């Protein structure tokens, strides 16, 4: 009896619940999600309820999962490895020089004073460089007399004449290079003579075309007004004030821009005033008369100096 009563109660409760559910569904079915007009223009969706939407959501979720599994889990197989390549370009400036340890000029004949002494091919300069470069020569000494004068090693005789001068300018040395400077065509170069390629002039011509660059005893590079063997002051461009990297080994040997044969001349003149001594810009004479007054002449003796060749990255 009790069992029948319980079953009856449960039936009534289920019915109530169903009725409630039904009632709620009815209510929701009356709620339009989109205007009717819009429905017709897009997809034939007549009406929605949450139950239908839930089912649709699940359907599309399953579809998305299927597509995702296929496309994501089975992407095209591939593998890759990498190699890093590092290149270290170290700058190399190499100046090979063939020359005698010492070049001697002995003036023991009057014609040597007049015509001077020339040492042809006394020095050969061979350049190899991985960077753009300049090459210049600078006259230097130990500075015992002065920073821009030869060192006097021996003073001949027992005394000095009234006008005997031991201050022989370093610029009295004349150079001649075999190849012209092909790295000084820039508009900013103001030097009267950009290099030492001018042939030695006659002994009666004094123009400073070959006088050695000197800078107060230092190796400071020449300015735009001075001489270089190759390249020049400034970093504008190769050809304007720089020489391109390269080597005499691959650039055609002695006819190239990397190979220079240097001649030396020293001409005291008579009286010995070294008339070709000029500042490197060829504008300022440095002969003994100009520097010390009329009647001056070089004091006999042994003098020494050195020429320093500097190969430097374009600057």
């Amino acid at each position: 009896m009790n069992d029948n009563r319980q079953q009856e109660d449960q039936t009534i409760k289920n019915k109530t619940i169903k009725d409630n559910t039904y009632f709620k569904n009815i209510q929701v079915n009356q709620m339009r999600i989109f205007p009717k007009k819009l429905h017709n223009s897009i997809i034939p969706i007549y009406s929605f309820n949450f139950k239908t939407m839930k089912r649709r959501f699940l359907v599309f979720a399953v579809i998305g999962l299927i597509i995702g599994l296929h496309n994501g889990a089975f992407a095209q197989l591939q593998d890759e490895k990498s190699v890093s390549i590092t290149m270290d370009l170290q700058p190399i400036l190499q100046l090979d020089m063939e020359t005698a340890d010492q070049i001697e000029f002995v003036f023991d004949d009057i014609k040597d004073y007049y015509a001077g002494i020339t040492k042809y091919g006394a020095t050969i300069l061979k350049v190899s460089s991985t960077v753009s470069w300049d090459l210049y020569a600078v006259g230097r000494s130990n500075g015992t007399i002065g920073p821009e004068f030869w060192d006097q090693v021996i003073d001949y005789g027992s005394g000095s004449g009234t006008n005997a001068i031991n201050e022989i300018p370093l610029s009295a040395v004349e150079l001649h290079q075999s190849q012209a400077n092909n790295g000084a065509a820039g508009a900013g170069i103001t030097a009267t003579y950009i290099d030492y390629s001018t042939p030695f002039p006659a002994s009666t011509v004094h123009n400073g075309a070959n006088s050695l660059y000197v800078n107060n005893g230092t190796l400071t590079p020449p300015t735009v007004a001075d001489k270089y063997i190759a390249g020049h002051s400034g970093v504008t461009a190769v050809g304007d004030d720089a020489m391109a990297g390269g080597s005499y080994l691959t650039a055609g040997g002695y006819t190239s821009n990397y190979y220079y044969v240097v001649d030396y001349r020293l001409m005291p003149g008579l009286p010995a005033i070294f008339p070709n001594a000029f500042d490197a810009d060829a504008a300022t004479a440095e002969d003994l008369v100009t520097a010390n007054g009329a009647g001056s002449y070089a004091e006999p003796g042994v003098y020494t100096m050195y020429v320093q060749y500097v190969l430097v990255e374009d600057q």
Partner: protein
Amino acid sequence: MTIQQLRHIILILSLWIISPLSTISQIVCADVEIVSNTGEQADFVFDSFSKYISGITFHGIANVDVKVDDQLPSNPDCKWMLSMTVENNPSAGTAADEWETLVTYGSGSSTPPQIDILEVRVTNICSTSPVDGVYQTFTLSGDNIEIIENTGIVIPAGSCTTNVNGPGSYLTNYDEFHFQIDFRITPGFDYDPGIYQLQVKFELVEVP
């Protein structure tokens, strides 16, 4: 069954049919792998003039060993291609045709090296690469050179001919699946001294 329900069923069935077909076509091999460790660094140090002139060559600096496994059961379409790509870290502002600059020496007025001074040569015993034995150059970052081309057909391992691209391994077909990579650089004298870097990436990929 309503019309709407019928539409849903048709849609689902269509996706079941189309989706697997379109995706399965991309998977033709079980595995592709470059086995050898090529992740090393090749240091080219130019510290003498002779090296600048003659260049530096590293033989076998990167050995690429290929291993491609077929599916079970065997898929007759399993094939692959191998390529290499050069990169110069363009996000750092590197010009497309230049090496990435790490350090510069001095104050030179010249320019960073061009990518095309790097030469890469690929060889193996059977000369399976169309570019086998010939130094190749890249011009721009991202340039790609195919070592084994996508010919569209399967050339099985053991053929010992050009473009062998079937399943196989350097262990069983060493002459075809092992590639020796040589690098050569001849910088010349036109570039700014410094330290520069490039990356060469080897990519193995299956071809549907």
